[in-house]
């Protein structure tokens, strides 16, 4: 049994037909697998190695290159604060500091209840709407400390549902 859902496994099988080599869809497969499982577990790596006919070491080699991929569990909601130049000029470091304070964790750490993890990240392409952050794949832009509080509260409530 693959560690991912049957639906995702079938989607991968279908999508791989769009390329001339089996490994070509590997990067998206890693990302979609991570989205479903929360991180790239040993089982997930073994599964993708078999799916692409590659050694597990090669899969790990690819994982280590891409900053969005992780082999370690993270919080349910991954808060990524951009502190790159455009966001920095509009107060992103204050936003990141505020997130650290509110969540009680630092860069690449996870709250004890497993709800949030926090990361300082490079440019997320929201330069004209900075400071900005992404929670999982949701963009939040033109941030203020008040806005951050409201956003974190919303995700906290979501986690309780």
């Amino acid at each position: 049994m693959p560690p991912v859902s049957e639906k995702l496994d079938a989607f991968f099988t279908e999508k791989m037909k769009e390329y001339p080599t089996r490994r070509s869809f590997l990067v998206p497969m890693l990302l979609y697998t991570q989205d479903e499982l929360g991180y790239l577990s040993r089982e997930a790596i073994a599964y993708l190695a078999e799916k692409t006919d590659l050694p597990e070491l090669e899969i790990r080699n690819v994982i280590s290159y891409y900053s969005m991929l992780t082999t370690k569990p993270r919080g349910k909601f991954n808060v990524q604060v951009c502190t790159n130049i455009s966001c920095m000029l509009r107060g992103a470091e204050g936003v990141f500091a505020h997130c650290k304070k509110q969540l009680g964790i630092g860069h690449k750490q996870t709250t004890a209840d497993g709800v949030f993890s926090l990361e300082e990240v490079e440019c997320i392409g929201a330069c004209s709407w900075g400071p900005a952050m992404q929670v999982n794949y949701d963009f939040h832009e033109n941030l203020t400390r008040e806005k951050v509080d409201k956003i974190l509260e919303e995700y906290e409530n979501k986690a309780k549902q």
Partner: protein
Amino acid sequence: MADLVSHPDEKKVVSARFGKGAANIERYLELDGYQAVQKALALGPDGIINEMKASNLRGRGGAGFPAGMKWSFVPKESAKPKYVLCNGDESEPGTCKDRLILEHDPHAVIEGVMIAALAIGAKTGYIYIRGEYRYLVDIMRKALADAYAKGFLGKNIFGSGRDLDVYWHTGAGAYEVGEESALMESLEGKRGIPRIRPPFPAVVGLWGGPTVINNVETLASVPHVIMGGGEWYANLGTPKNGGTRLFCLSGHVAKPGVYELPLGYNLKKMIYEVAGGIPNGRQLKAVVPGGSSTPMLKPEEIDLPMDFDSCAKIGTFLGSGGVVVLDDTTCMVKFAQRVIKFYQHESCGWCIPCREGTDWLKKTLTRFHAGGGLKKDIDNIQYLAENMLGRTFCPLGDAAAMPIISIVKKWRSEFEDHLNGRPCPYGHEEEKQLLPVLSH
């Protein structure tokens, strides 16, 4: 979803369908969608390339290479399949335009890929979107599915006897993958490490086949070139710099946003009139003209037509169109440190000058900004950055070095202000907590 802005000086071509619901295929068809590809079928490969050459459309990803010429480099006959690859791995700090195109007008990108494929004789195209833009991947997935459902993609498109497939693909976080050869490696399922050139992708690209790689904005411009004609498009800009482009204005401006302006539009006017000037009564200190990799400009240098050639003439680049504005509260040492932190993080590590150079520069600038700088560091930073230039497989090494060199040369006095253990004259309390003073 990002807010849209507007200004009377805008010339909306690529952004003409923004805010009009064109991600929906029916709406796109109402707005003349998929007519350009039918016209391109009638023109044939040579006709398309002639229009593209006449348009003077230059690559919008940053390099500014003429798109028509790039397409003409693809050999007519090839034993291996040919491909078109759309580069949607937008990651250059200061740049956020492709995101808007993919969100508001995904079918224009598909149509651009289709026209490029018709021009070079490819049967397959891929649209690669950065992983962080997941909502755009979903928009593109739907747009492609809708195009297939209408019969615009697949077998015998528009009754032409031509088969053409276009697929979506996503990255997983790597600035380096925006470089065209690294993009191909990533699409092939590998680490995004650049390939040595020559051979160039137009001859040996994806899976060894001839490949045309263009940025999202370039490809989204193509249907407009075909519909309006190359000459019409060229006349929108300046000689050798055809058309319009999306400028992403960010930083210390009153009205940040993405504005579409003709090439050659004056930078000073762009900052003070289009983007509303510098807020809070502050003065301008510096401008990043085309994304974080481009050499920075002083206020006295910004009376400048924003086109590829005028920027090159004064020693900088139009790049990806990311104009970042800095007011007089900004510490240039801190800014240099943040820029190099990015490139150090994103260096793939393949070439030693880039891997080691970005690391040394980051460490030195971090220590320097935190008050641990020595006078000799200033020259060393410049020397090190200059010695990275032209010594790497891909342009990331240059991209990291060029802004740093310009900052040291043009704002040297700010480095001197930080010497002898003095704290940064511009503050940054939070930042000091984050950055330790390194021993030296």
